[in-house]
């Protein structure tokens, strides 16, 4: 009985949505040269104020999402001012933002808003299409927010690769001097991109609280901000690459939930590790990368052994949760030559006289 069934796909796509939104926003920011370690803080801010907004607007989901987006932008404005305008260190400010968001939301939650709850968003059903077998429930019966996110991802791709704005943004991250010489204000471009990342992350956070569960809890963002950062790296700073990375993470997450119910890991999972191991080993041998070949080979052999013996392996759910980070590390370790971050990421732009 493979866990990779319809229910798994439905869950994957549902889990994907907020993560994808935050990651896509971060792609724009990093493409322009700014790293947001404080992404977690952006999401937390959006989650809290989004719910607060929704509750104040009579449980309006759209209103809540909107407030979340604005809140995310507001805290991102602090980040942008400190790092882009004043050129403070991006990582340090990011840590500060996380503390600030954690503190502010925690404080307000305790003091003001402990028991706010609204009715969360229900899944929509696109007429006709949702009646299709399999595809109907997986793709066409998700919540409206999912579709909105997919539209945004496409729009971001289009903007980055089919408009002059996109070229300016990409130039700001790869070689800001050229953008500056062409007469554009690199600072302004980066500022705008950070705000966009804040809006997206804020919206993503609001999706978690307003659309998913209808309440706010301490720690509900639960590391998704960092997961989004990992997805940006794994996705090679391209919106569709990030889509694939987020899908991978979400798939693993959905899988983990199913397996917790089922107990042990089914054979189909091991087939996947087998192929991954084989791929790594083969490409390692071709590249003459010994470390990679050994790693891939071991993974291959281990998976093969488990499959042949029919071993029932119980994998702690923490390994699943750590899997996205491990995957990102592995990709960075073995494929670092092709993983090229924007050249001027975290580098402040100063015009040379």
């Amino acid at each position, binding site marked *: 009985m493979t866990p990779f069934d319809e229910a798994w796909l439905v869950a994957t796509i549902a889990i994907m949505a907020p993560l994808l939104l935050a990651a896509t926003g971060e792609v724009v920011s990093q493409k322009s040269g700014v790293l947001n370690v404080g992404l977690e803080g952006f999401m937390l801010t959006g989650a809290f104020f989004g719910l607060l907004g929704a509750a104040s607007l009579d449980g309006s989901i759209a209103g809540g999402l909107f407030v979340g987006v604005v809140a995310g932008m507001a805290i991102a404005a602090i980040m942008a001012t400190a790092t882009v305008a004043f050129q403070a260190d991006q990582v340090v400010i990011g840590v500060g933002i996380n503390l600030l968001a954690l503190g502010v939301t925690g404080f307000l939650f305790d003091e003001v808003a402990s028991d706010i709850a609204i009715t969360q968003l229900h899944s929509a059903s696109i007429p006709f299409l949702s009646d299709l077998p399999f595809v109907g429930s997986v793709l066409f019966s998700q919540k409206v927010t999912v579709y909105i996110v997919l539209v945004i991802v496409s729009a971001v791709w289009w903007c980055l690769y089919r408009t*002059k704005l996109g070229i300016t943004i*990409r*130039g700001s991250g*790869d070689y800001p001097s050229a953008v500056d010489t*062409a007469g554009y204000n690199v600072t302004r471009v980066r500022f705008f991109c950070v705000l966009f990342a804040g809006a997206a992350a804020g919206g993503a956070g609001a999706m978690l609280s307003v659309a998913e569960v209808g309440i706010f809890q301490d720690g509900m963002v639960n590391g998704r901000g960092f997961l989004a950062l990992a997805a940006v790296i794994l996705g090679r700073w391209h919106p569709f690459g990030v889509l694939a990375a987020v899908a991978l993470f979400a798939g693993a997450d959905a899988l983990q939930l199913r397996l917790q119910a089922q107990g042990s890991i089914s054979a189909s999972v091991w087939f996947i590790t087998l192929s991954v191991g084989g791929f790594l080993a083969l490409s390692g041998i071709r590249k003459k990368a010994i470390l990679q070949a050994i790693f891939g080979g071991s993974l291959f052999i281990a998976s093969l052994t488990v499959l042949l013996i029919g071993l029932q392996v119980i994998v702690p759910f923490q390994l699943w949760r750590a899997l996205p980070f491990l995957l990102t590390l592995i990709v960075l370790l073995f494929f670092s030559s092709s993983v090229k971050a924007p050249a001027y990421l975290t580098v402040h732009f100063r015009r040379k006289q």
Partner: protein
Amino acid sequence: MLKMNGISKSFGRLHANENVDLIVEYGEIHGLLGENGAGKSTLMNILFGLLQPDSGTIEVDGKIVKINSPKEALELGIGMVHQHFQLVPTLTVAENLTLTTPGPMLQLDLQKISDYISEISQKYDLEVNPSARISDLSVGQQQRVEIIKLLFRNAKIIVLDEPTAVLTPSEWQRFTPFLKRLTEEGRSIVFISHKLDEQFDASNSCTVLRHGKSIGTRVMAETDKDDLVEMMVGKTLAVAEVRQTIASDAETLLKMSHVSTRSAIGRVGLQDISLNVKSGEILGIAGVDGNGQDEIVDVLLGLLDMLSGNVELRGVCSTAMSPSKWRELGGALVTADRHTTGVALQLDLADNLLVTERHNPELVRLGAFSKAAVERHVTDQLNSFDVRGAQPNVTMAQLSGGNQQKLVLAREMNREIDILIAAQPIRGLDIGAAQTVHDRILQHRNNGGATILISTELDELIKLSDRIVVLSGGCIVGQINNDESFNFDELAGLMAGGNAT
């Protein structure tokens, strides 16, 4: 078409341009000639709106204009191709061009731009593919993209700043006809280069700058190399130091035999370099920056792998050389660019002096520096070269350039050394300090030490060297003995890119 009248610009006490006149006619390729530091870059930065002149005017098409920014310059039809290309490596040619075109942000007409690029590329036979990524293009192709950028903006006056620094000889051969074709349509080109051969190949006429002043303008057809060299360099007044004859049995301390290295981006490949230095000898290496000097230094220090050839120190083949081993074996290095390779600007003077003394038993006890001994050492060092403005905990960055250089010299030369590599040792120093440096080098020579003197200053080389080799494009193109048979023009000719006769 373009007239720069009486342009003057000073930076503090440095007069970068003094009353410079430049006239460029329609449809002409006008060369701007001069050594490093002659004032060419400053003049062009003024033309391009990056700097404002202290006095003087600029006329375009007969009208006096004020150029306040590169944007304004472009609007007037003046475009410049910088030495460092303003191209985003990860974007395609067409995408880079869109950066420079005005237009709404949310649109992109890549097709129109691609068509234009293809058209121009065809017309001038440039072989530039609009959808190629910049990082995939050769440097020569990238340069052509920069020119296409200017053509797209309808530039009438194109300034090329040392364009051949990045071209292979074959690329250069195709470049000249391209320039001529550009001018056929009424455009003018200002061609900045210190290489005489190229000026004769490409330019119609040229203006020579020296030490910030414009010396004169010549029509290429009516002049010759000697005339231009004389204008560029001036009659040298340097008198060679009294030369000690080098004993015929003097030991060869350093020998490079047929050394070749790989070329790479930003690295010139050395080609079959052979040189040697004897005890008591000063070997001068002449040539413009970027022709292999850095690479020779790196090979000698063991920082650059050789493809072939070897290096001998005192007759012993030196394998596994490293900077620390070089010092141990009695070598000293005064690097050409102290900010990058010589000192740490954020650390203080003591730190910069002590970094090479970490294993000196007189200063170090049990891994720690002894305060009293260190203080004495530092004071002695600073005084020996008269480093001004120095208390030990002043940071390096707070010293003037000249004093920084003096500190480096103190560090390198105040010990027992056999072989000294001095690269651009008096760059940035005033006359008094320069004299001190030269005296020390001569002292080192008198004590039997060997010196490799790398310099772009002919005066310095003539004053100190026993022999001078000229480096160009990674090869030694000639050697001249600095004795009675010395011919200054021959040296200048070699440096200007010709071959030894």
